[in-house]
């Protein structure tokens, strides 16, 4: 196989952070807390940087969803795969993608996870089994289904988790993907992060069946719903369904009820379609604050440990910003780089030149050879 085609790794080590029984001990508790805190602080910094115009394009934040994100992603094994929608920063960080590479990608720098070609919606780290943030609603579902098919084709004992938003369950690709996963017995968990709104349209307005997990039953597939503000509850459900997918080749839908404090994107105040009271009510069940309190109440950790984590994630995010600032812009003459991967591409395009429109010869045809 040519080196330009990424290959999955052959090992299947369990994450060292997991004890495998689904019940986090104190170190797990701190780990879950730290991951949630990192995402929160990271995204708050992203919004600041966006307002300073150092980050452009669409930028979808997920503050409030950290319990859902971290709880669902944490039980993935090293060789499991994760796909996500465009609200992708938290999922990437939860999967262990380097915060430096995420921030640099948002800054549009060569050091970014997609070398400045993808931006906020298109983070990816194949080495971490994070197969991308995808920008078209439901577009990632058929891809994730195919990745699960590839796992079975190669006889791998792993599973795919595919994140999507609530609104995606009204799209055709949702139905087609669940149907294929069902008839082909694919090891995949469709993770519906139900944050109550697809842009500004509520689930109740958009979905004839607003209890989204029930839609799995149309495909004789297991579906269940869990409280996304309780990270351990999400983790327990995700772990169970992922095991079932790996061991029994049974797909499932996991609907996680959660909320985004911010608007659909940073350009949306998020107040036209919901009340301040509603937002405040959800903030009373903030997943990070709830978990912090629980860890302290159950005497699983001490206040000092939590404060040390808070300080650590602040520093980590500062470091990510510094890395992004220092990372160079992609060279302008690399514009056509990565368009094709086959080594023969430059030769294949070599005869296209005569009569080329402006820029094609210099930027594309010659660029392919780089």
């Amino acid at each position, binding site marked *: *196989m*040519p080196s*330009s*085609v*990424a290959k*999955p790794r052959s090992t299947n080590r369990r994450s060292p952070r997991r004890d495998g029984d689904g019940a986090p001990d104190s170190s797990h508790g701190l780990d879950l807390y730290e991951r949630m805190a990192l995402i929160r602080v990271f995204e708050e910094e992203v919004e600041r940087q966006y307002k300073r115009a150092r980050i452009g394009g669409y930028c979808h934040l997920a503050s409030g969803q950290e319990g859902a994100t971290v709880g669902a992603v944490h039980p993935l094994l090293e060789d499991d795969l994760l796909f996500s929608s465009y609200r992708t920063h938290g999922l990437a960080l939860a999967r262990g993608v380097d915060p430096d590479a995420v921030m640099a990608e948002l800054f549009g720098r060569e050091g*970014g*996870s*997609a*070398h*400045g*070609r*993808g931006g906020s919606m*298109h983070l*990816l*780290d*194949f080495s971490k089994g994070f*197969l*991308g943030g995808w920008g*078209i609603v439901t*577009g990632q579902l*058929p*891809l*994730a*289904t*195919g*990745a*699960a*098919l*590839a*796992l079975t*084709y*190669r006889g791998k004992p792993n599973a795919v988790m595919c994140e999507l938003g609530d609104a995606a369950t009204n799209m*055709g*690709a949702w139905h*087609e*993907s669940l*149907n*294929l996963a069902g*008839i082909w017995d694919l090891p995949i968990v469709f993770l519906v992060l139900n944050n109550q709104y697809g842009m500004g349209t509520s689930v109740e307005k958009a979905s004839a069946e607003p209890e989204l997990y029930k839609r799995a039953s149309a495909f004789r597939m297991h579906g269940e719903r869990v409280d996304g503000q309780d990270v351990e509850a999400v983790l327990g459900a995700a772990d169970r369904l992922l095991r079932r997918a790996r061991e029994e080749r049974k797909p499932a839908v996991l609907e996680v009820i959660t909320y985004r404090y911010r608007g659909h994107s940073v350009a949306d105040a998020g107040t036209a379609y919901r009340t301040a009271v509603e937002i405040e009510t959800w903030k009373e069940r903030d997943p990070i604050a709830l978990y912090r309190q629980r860890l302290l109440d159950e005497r699983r950790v001490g206040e000092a440990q939590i404060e040390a984590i808070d300080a650590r994630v602040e520093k980590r995010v500062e470091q990510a910003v510094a890395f992004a600032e220092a990372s160079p812009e992609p060279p302008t003459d690399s514009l056509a*780089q*990565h*368009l*094709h*991967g*086959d*080594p*023969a*591409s430059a*030769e*294949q*395009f070599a*005869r*296209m*030149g*005569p*009569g*080329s*429109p402006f820029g094609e010869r210099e930027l*594309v045809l010659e660029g392919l050879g780089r």
Partner: protein
Amino acid sequence: MSVAAPSATTTMTYREAVRLAMREELLRDEDVFLMGEEIGVFEGSYKVTAGLFREFGPVRVRETPISEEGFVGAAIGAAMMGLRPVVEIMTLNFILVAMDQVVNHAAKIRYMFGGEVGCPLVIRTPNGGGSQLTAQHSQSFEVFFAHTPGLKVVAPSTPADARGLLKAAIRDDDPILVVENLQSYKIKGEVPEDPDHVVEIGRAAVTREGSDITLVAHSFAATRALRVAERLRADHGVSAEVVDLRSLRPLDTETVVRSVAKTNRALCVDEGWSTYGISAEITSRIQRACFDDLDAPVERVGLAEVPMPYAKNLERAALVNDEKIEAAALSVLGLGPDIFSS
């Protein structure tokens, strides 16, 4: 590229040549597998995959439900994982419901993720009309894909090219649309016996040499162009050169331009609509590269700019046929009525 016994050939149909390419590649590489509607027990709507399900089984020849967006996307996902799926779309018409997966996903994956992941996918599908299949089943809009950076598009017209280009596409690391043609499936021709013979992507073929006019075409229109070239010789003493593009993206402009520089006249023939079409692209490049060589404006023949009608006489009026191509060529040559001014 093979160097062994290039002369040893077997006669077979285009359909058999496509099937042979798939069989050879399935045998060569375990990462290659087929997907599509009715390609297994049913042996393919046009019998292209006949026998392969029996030989390779349901994992290598995966039957899918009618679910193009789902299974094209699944093939893309499998390709991201390093497999080499070869997807059959029953006819090109049905790919529109998977357009988002092809254009928004397959074409963009490698670039959008900065080269970190690829998509060695092949989609093969027949275009074309002429069997009273009407508006939704008679189209040739391969230009939609040739328009899209990140995709490669090939459209062979002969059995040898059908096999050689499909094999090249399967071995290529990028997403490729292989356009076949319903009218071409029964064409017979010589096909090299060497299982490693491939036809290089991005190379047009001069399938007939001539000195008076260049006919530029692809897919079944290239077959028609050859027939018309013979008629032009027999009826009018015209020496027409035919360039079979074979590959639409990348496009071998060099071969087209070399031909037009020699003949000084060009007619582009395309079974699809001309407006904004493949022939528009070819014409633009010719006028730029051959401005001083041209003795007449570059002209185009394409499908009438209507959805395909059902009634036989109307369908005949809409389709590109040999008579229309001949009349257009004579007009470009100044040997017949001027059908392009007005």
